[in-house]
Every structure is written in structure tokens, then in C-alpha cells.
């Protein structure tokens, strides 16, 4: 197990390294030179020259890259936001907890709803509940979350006045965003849970368990549920980064000051250092979640653990 974790960690570090390199090179892939992108179009020639020197754009590419990485790692210095004239980290620092709180709450609620539903659908296939769930998720996959957010806002905030339309002061502001996030994620989780549980139900070891004399409940809990839980648990971690990117949209609709909102505004404003920082943070988070999901997989499924460390790969 230790070798397995170390292997996954090394792979993750390599991946983050690659992504960071791509994120850093972004500015060089853009049309125009970095200094003018940084400073905006209105800068004078002397001003550009000063910026080029100040930010070290006149140094070799790799030197710049490693200097950028060093500052991020050891000084948490992501540069200065051009729009706000503030250090990027200070800007993001307050927004990360908001986005994380929302996504984690969404993730938990969504799985609490979807996993039992998926299990019921698998166990009572073709029943009324199953057909309703399958039909609803088919429609839901065609509903974009930004529109869902708008409709929820229209119905519950504008018409019924149950919750405030926008803002972020009280917990009641977070109800609609979380509902939007939960509903957008429901369909895929229900489908995944259902197919996993149905696969497990068809396994031969389920018949063995019955043959042993186990009760229906014993078989369902100890064999079907336990084995489908592997993928469900893995999915829990894999969902998190996708939810965070999904919240870019939801934060935008409800005006929640999270990372996603900041990112979209920064793209519109061409506030480059902020965009870089957020992409780097979210991709790092993604890689971390992937590693965590691999570790959970290793804990829950002895086959993987042994195949990876003792196998020929």
C-alpha cells in the first residue's frame, strides 16, 4: 500500500509540473508580447520597457518559469492583479473558502440523494421509481446549469420570495446555488450508482453469498453495496474538481464572490495573473483529488493495491 501511494503521489507531482508549465506558457501563446498583455494596450513604449524589465520578461524563458514557481511555492506570490492593483494571493485567499464550502456541501447533499436513489433503481429495476428517475435524469442532462439557476431564481426568489435574489451575507443566499449544483450533478451520479450496483447484482459471488445461506439483506449490504461502494467513493473525489468548475457558472448567476466569479471577470478584463493563479489552483486541486481517489480505490479494492505494487507495471 505504501509503494502504491508513493507511486501515485509521484505521478501527481509530475502532472502538476506539466500543467504549471502549460499555464505559465499561456502568456507566450497569446498574440502580442507579455509586457503589453500585462500592462494593457494603453501603455507607452517606455512604460512597456520598464514592465518588461521589472517582471523579468527579458530573461530566458526557463529562468522566468522557475522563478515564477519558486515565488508561488515559497512566498505565495502569484504576482499583482492589474485590475485591482493588489497581490493576487490576497484577492484569491478570501474566495477559496467560499467556493470550497459551496462545492463540498453540494457534493455531500448530492451523493446523499443520488446514491440511495441509484441503489433503489438498480434493485427495483423497471419499477415506477426507476422509470421516474431514469426519465428525469434523461431530461436533466439536457438542462444547462446556468438556465436551471435562472429558473430556480425566478421561481423561488422572485415569485415565491422564499429566498433572497442575490447577495452572500446569510446562509439563505446559499440555498439556491447549492440546489442548482445538486440537481445538475444528480443525473450522472444516479446513473453511475445504478450501473455499478446492477453490475454487482449480476456478479457470481452474489450467487455464492446466497448459496452460503446469507439473507437477502446480508447479501445486499455485505456484497452488493460493499462492492459498488468502491466506484461510488472514487467518484466522490473525482466529482469535486468538476463541481468547482461547474460553480464558475453558478457563482456567476447568483453573484457569489468565489473563485469562479473572479476567474470569469478576470478573463473579460484580461487580468492575466489572476487567471493564471486560479487555473493553477483548480488544476492542482484536481490532481490532488485524483490522487485521493486512487488512494481510496486502493484502500477499498485489494485487487488494485496488489496489481499496482506487485504487478508487472
Amino acid at each position, binding site marked *: 500500500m505504501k509503494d502504491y501511494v508513493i507511486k501515485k503521489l509521484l505521478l501527481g507531482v509530475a502532472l502538476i509540473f506539466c500543467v504549471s508549465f502549460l499555464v505559465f506558457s499561456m502568456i507566450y501563446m497569446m498574440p502580442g508580447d507579455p509586457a503589453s498583455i500585462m500592462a494593457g494596450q494603453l501603455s507607452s513604449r517606455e512604460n512597456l520597457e520598464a514592465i518588461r524589465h521589472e517582471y523579468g520578461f527579458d530573461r530566458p524563458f526557463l529562468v522566468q518559469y522557475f522563478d515564477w514557481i519558486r515565488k508561488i511555492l515559497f512566498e505565495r506570490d502569484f504576482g499583482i492583479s492589474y485590475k485591482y492593483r493588489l497581490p493576487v494571493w490576497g484577492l484569491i485567499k478570501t474566495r477559496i473558502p467560499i467556493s470550497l464550502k459551496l462545492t463540498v456541501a453540494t457534493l455531500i447533499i448530492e451523493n446523499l440523494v443520488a446514491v440511495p436513489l441509484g441503489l433503489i433503481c438498480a434493485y427495483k429495476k423497471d419499477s415506477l421509481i426507476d422509470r421516474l428517475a431514469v426519465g428525469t435524469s434523461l431530461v436533466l442532462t*439536457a438542462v444547462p*446549469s446556468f438556465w436551471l439557476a435562472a429558473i430556480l*431564481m425566478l421561481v423561488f426568489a422572485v415569485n415565491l420570495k422564499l429566498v433572497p435574489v442575490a447577495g452572500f451575507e446569510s446562509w439563505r443566499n446559499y440555498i439556491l446555488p447549492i440546489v442548482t449544483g445538486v440537481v445538475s450533478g444528480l443525473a450522472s451520479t444516479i446513473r453511475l450508482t445504478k450501473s455499478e450496483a446492477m453490475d454487482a447484482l449480476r456478479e457470481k459471488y452474489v450467487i455464492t453469498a446466497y448459496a452460503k445461506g446469507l439473507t437477502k439483506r446480508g447479501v445486499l449490504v455485505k456484497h452488493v453495496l460493499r462492492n459498488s461502494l468502491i466506484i461510488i467513493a472514487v467518484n466522490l473525489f473525482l466529482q469535486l474538481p468538476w463541481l468547482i468548475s461547474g460553480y464558475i457558472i453558478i457563482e456567476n448567476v447568483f453573484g457569489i464572490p468565489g473563485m469562479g466569479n473572479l476567474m470569469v471577470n478576470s478573463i473579460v478584463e484580461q487580468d492575466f495573473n489572476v*487567471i493564471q493563479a486560479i*487555473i493553477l489552483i483548480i488544476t492542482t486541486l484536481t490532481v490532488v483529488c485524483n490522487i485521493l481517489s486512487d488512494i481510496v480505490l486502493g484502500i477499498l479494492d485489494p485487487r488494485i493495491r496488489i496489481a499496482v505494487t506487485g504487478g508487472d507495471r
Partner: protein
Amino acid sequence: MNDSPVREFFKTCYKNRNFLIGLIMVGSVVLLAAFADVIAPFAYDANNPREILQAPSMQHWLGTDDMGRDLFSRIVYGTRITLKVAVIGAGLQLILGVSVGLICGYFGGAVDKGLMFFADLTYAIPSMIAALAVVTVIGSNLTNAIIAVAVVNWAAYARVVRAKTMAIKNQAFIETGIAFGESPLAIMFRYILPNIVPILIVNISMQLPGTIMSTTTLSFLGVGSQPPSPDWGWMVSDGIRYVSRGPWLCIYPGLALVYTVFGFNIMGEGLRDLLDPRMKSQ
């Protein structure tokens, strides 16, 4: 019995209700796009300061927006944008994915490893983040949004094509082709590609809804289509500002989008059942 292929096709269509309904839904969108000039009573950018934010009425079936433009007309013209997104988006993803997949599957080795690394990379980063990053680099407009979505989503095609190419490569007729002195390019396009077409069609139809959704979302966020273009995503985003004074502005463009995506969705599912019965389970 006279079972011509055409009749056979219609028979299976009839049996496969998903495909039929999907086809009708998508077909209606295509018709709207083709005859938008005839169907729409107003131009999509016809401002009318005297009829701002009017509720749906006999004259303006779905109401008007903050600049007095007729919402129904704008939605009808919007079908053109959505179909453009679907066609160009799928085309770009196909070109990227199929070429990478063919090259990887045919040559293997270091080329394969290198290219597939990039494919894996697109899976490691949430697609919305990656698409936003690409748009940041190349700029905000509809074409760039389509390109961004393609850059993020080509890998699924590449994987399928790569796996299929590897499987076909070792079959006898390929070796015959090589013996006749065909170039690798000819082998790939004349011998391998035709065998991959059915599974590609299935994959396109499965990916199309996602492509439309992602691109429209980029427009919603303001980094895709720019005003006054009648892009449904942008229209919903614009409508949210008037959510209390003109709720129809965000309801109807969204409904149009749901209708289209749902149509593509079930058409894709039907097509998958028709062309690839093995993938049917569940």
C-alpha cells in the same frame, strides 16, 4: 418479401422510438434555421426603443428584450448559431481526434505515447477550466469558443479511433494494401477509416449535446458569442438581469436550448442502439 434497404431503415426507425423522436426534434430545429428569414417576423437585431421589455403578446409572441427586440425572432435566428456550433464543433473535434487517433494507432511507439499524453492531460483538467484557459489565450468570440471546446474534447475521439486502428491494423487486408505499395496515408484513409465510420457516428452523436452545452455556456459567461448575436446562452445571461421585470427573457431561450440538446441526446441514444447493439446494455 421486398425488403429494400430504405424500407428496412424506416422500419428500424419506427421500432426505435428514441431515434425517431430525436430526429423529429433535431429536424424541426434544422428547418427553423433554414427558413429563419421566412418564419421570424422581425430581424434579430431590430431595436425598437418604444417597445422595451414587453410581455408576450399577439404582436411579440415571446415578448421583447431590453432593446425592444422581438424575442421569438431572436430565438429562431439563434438556431443558426446552435447548429453552427454543433457542425463546426463536431467537425473540429473529429479532425483533431481522428488524425491523432489514426497516427497513434497506426505508428504506435513514441509518437503514440507523446500524443496520448496530451489526450490524458485533457482528462486531468476539468473541461470548463481548460476551455476558459484556451479562450483567454485566443480571445473571446464564438469561433474561438468553438475552438476551445474542440481543443478540450477531441481526446474521446482519439481514443476510440486509436483503439480501432490498432485492432484493424493487423488484419490481412491491410497487409495486402501494404504489399501493393500503398502509402501509410492511403492505408489510413482508404483502408482503416471506412471501418471506423459507424463507431465514429455513434461517438459524434453522443458528444454533440455536450459540445453544444459547453459552447453555449461559454457564451453565457460572456467569453463566446458577443452581442447583438442571438446566442441562446448570451440571451439567458442577458435575461437574468431582468429576471423580475421580464422573466420571459431567460425562460424561452433556455427552453429552446433544452429542446435542442434533448433532441440530440435521444437521437444519439437511438443511433447508438441502431448502429452498435453491443453498447446497448443499460
